[in-house]
């Protein structure tokens, strides 16, 4: 009778483990290329781990003993268990990761959307499996709703509502011209006053009407806010362009300057036109052979837009400036007294 101590799957993985480690060591001796050795030995060790897991958890693989005088086999000896219950949330999570792949190629907005979709999918997935647990009775559901969900979710919902309105309105006000912004703010304030006056004077207003009102308000503010955010802010502060400012732009993984002259106390206005790709401006000391020495200042990386750096003034001399992300983006920095 074959041994039932280790099931065949364990033996297969154990053999793979032994072979992986042996071939890895042989590879090291014959080829001497350490990365290959690391991979082969790792594969052996992982297979060994799987073998142990399978031996411990897959259970015995013994067939029940059938006596010689046993009756013929039965056509319906057992049932196969219950089928799986479906869920739409795994699909939603997959869509979220797909959006993540798109976001990784394009930019932060889609990445945030991907995180939200994946988060909603994961939370829904967990919530569904939670509700399917036998302990989830109507009584427990009511208790959880009143003791946990309402007290914790309500403040979050209110915070999210307030934040989305504030952010939406601010996007609108930052997009429209300066004078129009005052008008928009006044119209919004008056509309709010009127709306709340109507609400307060008509206590009989139904729940669905209230919900519809809130949804419409959030959608219109949110929609206008997204449109404003897409269009971009108007120029609010006049970017200093006179003495005391050095302007440098990154475009197509290149700086527009190969030499930068900076006086003590001057600020650096850095503009990144490679939307979606991180760049920064960093200052390095120069080694005697002209190479990159110790860092003096590492500006905050941005993947779009503009940022103003206030670098601590190094002593007068010649240095290097570079982007920390791209080896080819570098130039000479001359600091004057």
């Amino acid at each position: 009778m074959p041994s039932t101590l280790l099931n065949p799957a364990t033996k297969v993985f154990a053999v793979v483990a032994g072979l992986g480690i042996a071939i890895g060591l042989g590879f090291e001796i014959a080829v001497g290329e350490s990365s290959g050795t690391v991979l082969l030995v790792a594969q052996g060790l992982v297979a060994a781990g799987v073998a142990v897991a399978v031996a411990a958890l897959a259970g015995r693989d013994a067939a029940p003993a059938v006596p010689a005088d046993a009756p013929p086999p039965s056509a319906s000896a057992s049932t196969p268990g219950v089928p799986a219950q479906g869920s739409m949330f795994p699909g939603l999570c997959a869509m979220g990761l797909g959006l993540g792949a798109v976001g990784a190629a394009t930019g932060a907005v889609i990445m945030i959307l991907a995180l939200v979709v994946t988060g909603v999918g994961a939370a829904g997935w967990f919530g569904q499996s939670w509700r399917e647990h036998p302990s989830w009775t109507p009584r427990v559901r009511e208790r959880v709703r009143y003791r946990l969900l309402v007290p914790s979710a309500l403040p979050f919902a209110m915070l999210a509502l307030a934040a989305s309105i504030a952010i939406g309105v601010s996007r609108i006000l930052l997009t429209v011209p300066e004078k129009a912004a005052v008008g928009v703010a006044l119209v919004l304030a008056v509309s709010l006053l009127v709306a709340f006056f109507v609400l307060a004077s008509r206590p009989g207003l139904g729940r669905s009407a209230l919900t519809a009102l809130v949804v419409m308000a959030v959608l219109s503010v949110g929609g206008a806010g997204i449109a404003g955010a897409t269009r971009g802010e108007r120029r609010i502060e006049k970017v200093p362009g006179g003495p005391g400012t050095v302007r440098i732009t990154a475009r197509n993984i290149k700086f527009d300057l190969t030499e930068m002259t900076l006086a003590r106390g001057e600020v650096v206005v850095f503009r990144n036109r490679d939307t979606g790709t991180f760049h920064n401006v960093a200052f390095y000391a120069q080694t005697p052979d002209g190479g990159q020495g110790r860092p003096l200042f590492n500006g905050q990386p941005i993947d779009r837009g503009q940022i103003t750096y206030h670098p601590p003034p190094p002593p007068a001399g010649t240095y290097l400036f570079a982007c920390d992300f791209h080896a080819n983006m570098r130039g000479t920095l001359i600091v004057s007294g």
Partner: protein
Amino acid sequence: MTATTAATPALPSGAPSRPRNVATLAVLILALGGMMAFAALIAAYRALAHYQSLPPKGVKLDNYLGVMTTFTLVLSAPLVEWAWSAVRRDERRQAIAALGLTIGMGIAFVDLDWYLVSRLGFGVATPYGTVFYAMVILAGINAGVGILFLLGALLRVLGGQASGSEPEPVRVVGWYWEFVVVAWVLVALTLYPIVK
């Protein structure tokens, strides 16, 4: 027919009992497979070290940060085992405390990981930088996913869905967290001259 069936008790009959440890075995196999992704990055580092001395000239890694980050995560390993042991013994409060502490350690690790990345004086754009950032970022994402799983386990314990009679949710998450810890330790041993 009934009589003959009764005479052969060794034969299988009836509905199959619900198999145990299904999710545990799955998470172990997938986590061990996941180790191969880290092995690929470690192999890339070894390949680089074959042609140049690492860390390269001009890069001085802060060993203190590497050691503290590793300590933080290694300390969380016994905590998650404590949670598992407490759940098995139906010590609900202990399990909640242990899981809460593990989550705290996990968040501390992600924070340290983030801090470590933000303090690096070199960018992605060198071969060394590419491998370094890949390893550290992947370990951070791995820990982030682990923290979400730990939160799920904590909710299960709070809601009475993980207990002495049903401890698997915590065991599954525990194994995943051990994978997070082992993966980081291997990354740290590769990147930081801790042993030296």
